[in-house]
């Protein structure tokens, strides 16, 4: 059913409760005398609510929704700023290799300087052999060479005539 052209928009607003004051009085006064507009209003009341189709997700949906959004907000905050990124920045690309390189240079300098000041060891055979073994173990990972350490100690003892022979 078609409404009067002059009232059509107002009838839509009236249906939604958006008419007030003088406009509302004007519409209601017109409705009293116009069957077409009454019919039009009745059609709006019947078909407009039927256009609404809602979705009612279960409670578990909302729990997942909140949880997912919290994770996304954390990611967004981390990417955009805040205190956490300033701390993690310390562990990011360029500071680490620069610091590491500096540390290596400092250690190397310390070792070379301390080596240059070390007194010459005595040149007797025992000390030469001990120095050779000491150098050997300094060049190895002691945890991996415990067997070899024991065998060297066994050889030293054998040379002194105290310990039984050890199989390598």
């Amino acid at each position, binding site marked *: 059913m078609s409404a009067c052209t002059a009232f059509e928009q107002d009838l*839509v607003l009236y249906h939604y409760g958006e008419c007030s004051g003088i406009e509302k009085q004007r519409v209601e006064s017109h409705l009293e005398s116009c069957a077409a507009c009454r019919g039009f209003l009745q059609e*709006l009341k019947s078909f407009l609510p*039927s256009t609404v189709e809602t979705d009612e997700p279960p409670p578990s949906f909302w729990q997942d*929704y909140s949880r997912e959004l919290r994770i*996304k*907000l954390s990611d967004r905050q981390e990417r955009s700023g805040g205190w956490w990124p300033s701390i993690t920045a310390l562990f990011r690309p360029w500071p680490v290799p620069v610091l590491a390189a500096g540390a290596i240079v400092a250690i190397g300098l310390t070792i070379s300087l301390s080596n240059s000041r070390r007194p010459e060891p005595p040149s007797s055979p025992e000390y030469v052999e001990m120095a050779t073994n000491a150098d050997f173990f300094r060049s190895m990972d002691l945890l991996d060479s415990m067997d070899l350490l024991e065998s060297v100690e066994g050889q030293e003892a054998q040379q002194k005539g105290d310990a039984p022979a050890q199989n390598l």
Partner: protein
Amino acid sequence: MISRPGELGDEALVIAAQQGEREAFEVLVERYKEKAYRIAFDFTRDREEAKDLSQDAFLQAFSHLKSFDRRASFYTWFYRILVNLCLDYRRRKAKIAWESLEERTERGDGFASPGPSPVDQAIRGEISEKIETALATLPPKQRAVFLLKNHEGLSISEIAGVMKSAEGTIKVHLHRAVIALKQRLTELA
């Protein structure tokens, strides 16, 4: 750290969130998530899409919160973000549908739109399908105004704030949308 954030009004929560209190923003999320989801569902008619769109709106609001000057209410500003995302979604969907139609035309499949499958039609109901078809024919802004008014019950002034339009413009959009829907549903009946 704010105590009892759930008892604070939107403005106080926004101020706290702008100062770095993420908990305050999460209260706003809990307060508006269902409404945001419903609006997104009105546009998408798909649960997962609606979830993604509404969550994207919250993320955008979070990212731009510091630029929110609080002249409008939080929900008006937030719904504006959400509606823009929904309108953009519809544009992308329409573009994909159009490109798909062009491809089918080039292949010689004709102009027939694929339409809903028989199973979908049975499940969703013929009336529901007609309503969705009718709604889909509305221009984007008319559809947005209609959904916000008819489905979500926002006032004309609220819709005007969300859409950044004059109230008179919103009334015209609403009127045209209702008349177009009425006519379309009559044709489909």
